[in-house]
């Protein structure tokens, strides 16, 4: 019997096509993506049946954590720079250009103005720790939150306000935030919620 000779096939696979696919997908993801913003606290938003999506730009985020600390952030680096310059002037806090630059890179923060300088000089890794975020005061005697909103509105008149609060946040804190907004005649705002299926519709 003659031996059946099995021809060795080359194991070489042309990877070019796969490479094409990989980079096509990569391009897609790069173009469509908007990065998840890093937030100093993780909040569990309540659910609602509302299906309105939040726009991506011109958003002023007000984050309220369960303990009642208020955080604040706007989008746009240049806008943030103008904002901190304004606020530094109002509260007579002198910030170096380097500190202003650092502020413009922070998405969202929660510190009173007196602690701002120290906060900006922390290294970015520990900046988000809860003990380094004291919350923005929003009391009637020292309403820095209101000033932030006012200044942000001056910097970018197209801002829309989005309130993102934890389910367990006590109502008085929300009331304080809403009152401050009301005093500034900011009567339209968005409450960020997660999706719940509408009953029977």
């Amino acid at each position: 019997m003659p031996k059946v000779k099995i021809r060795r096939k080359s194991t070489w696979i042309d990877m070019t096509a796969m490479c094409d696919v990989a980079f096509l997908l990569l391009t897609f993801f790069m173009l469509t993506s908007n990065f998840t913003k890093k937030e100093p606290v993780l909040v569990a938003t309540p659910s609602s049946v509302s299906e309105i999506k939040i726009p991506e730009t011109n958003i002023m985020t007000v984050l309220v954590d369960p303990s009642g600390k208020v955080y604040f952030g706007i989008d746009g680096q240049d806008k943030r720079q103008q904002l901190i310059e304004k606020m530094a002037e109002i509260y007579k806090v002198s910030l170096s250009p380097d500190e202003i630059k650092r502020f413009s890179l922070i998405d969202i923060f929660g510190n009173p103005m007196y602690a701002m300088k120290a906060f900006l000089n922390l290294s970015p890794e520990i900046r988000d720790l809860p003990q380094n975020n004291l919350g923005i005061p929003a009391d009637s005697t020292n309403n820095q939150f209101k000033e932030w909103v006012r200044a942000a509105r001056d910097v970018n008149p197209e801002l829309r306000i989005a309130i993102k609060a934890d389910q367990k946040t006590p109502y008085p804190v929300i009331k304080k935030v809403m009152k401050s907004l009301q005093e500034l005649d900011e009567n339209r705002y968005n409450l960020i919620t997660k999706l719940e299926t509408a009953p029977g519709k």
Partner: protein
Amino acid sequence: MAEISHDSGSHKKSGKKRSKKLPTRIDFTPMVDLGFLLITFFMLATSLIKPQTMEITMPSDKKVEDVDKTIAKASQAVTVILGKNDKVFYYFGKTEGANVIETTYAAEGLRKILLEKNYNVAKQVEDLRVEKIKLRMDEDLFQRKMAEIKANKNAPVVRIMATDEANYKNLVDALDEMNICSISRYAIVDIDEPDRLLIKEKGI
């Protein structure tokens, strides 16, 4: 890459100026690896799901009289009080001598009551939704008809009062019920003096 580099040295000795043909085949495997690595990164770092939002419009400080005007019509007024421990209370009409009833945020609770109270409008909205699907109504017309229905003068007016013990979830739940029950006129109001007494009296 390995194939490109192994041509050096050996054929130089021959002296002939014949360039050796380089293999044109390049191993793309590392590039594919890199591609997929980056894809993975982008997939994990992006937020594909955009958060939902609920739009609310609060009455302005300067239009307080307007709110009072709507409250004046006692027959349409519903007051919802958000209490502690996820409890919710409601009463119809005036604060004086109101019959405060406890209910829940569940579908059989607050929603049922509000739907009953808002029966006409809710029915019309429901009909309109069905009609929209059946007749393929365009969005513009749908919105216009919706606004017409919601402008109903006899629809209930809901006042939402949250006590200090209520939490944010309670508030959003209550606002959500307003949306579900197609109630167009509602407001988050501060607890005023008569209601404070009522709350104290009932031990909410």
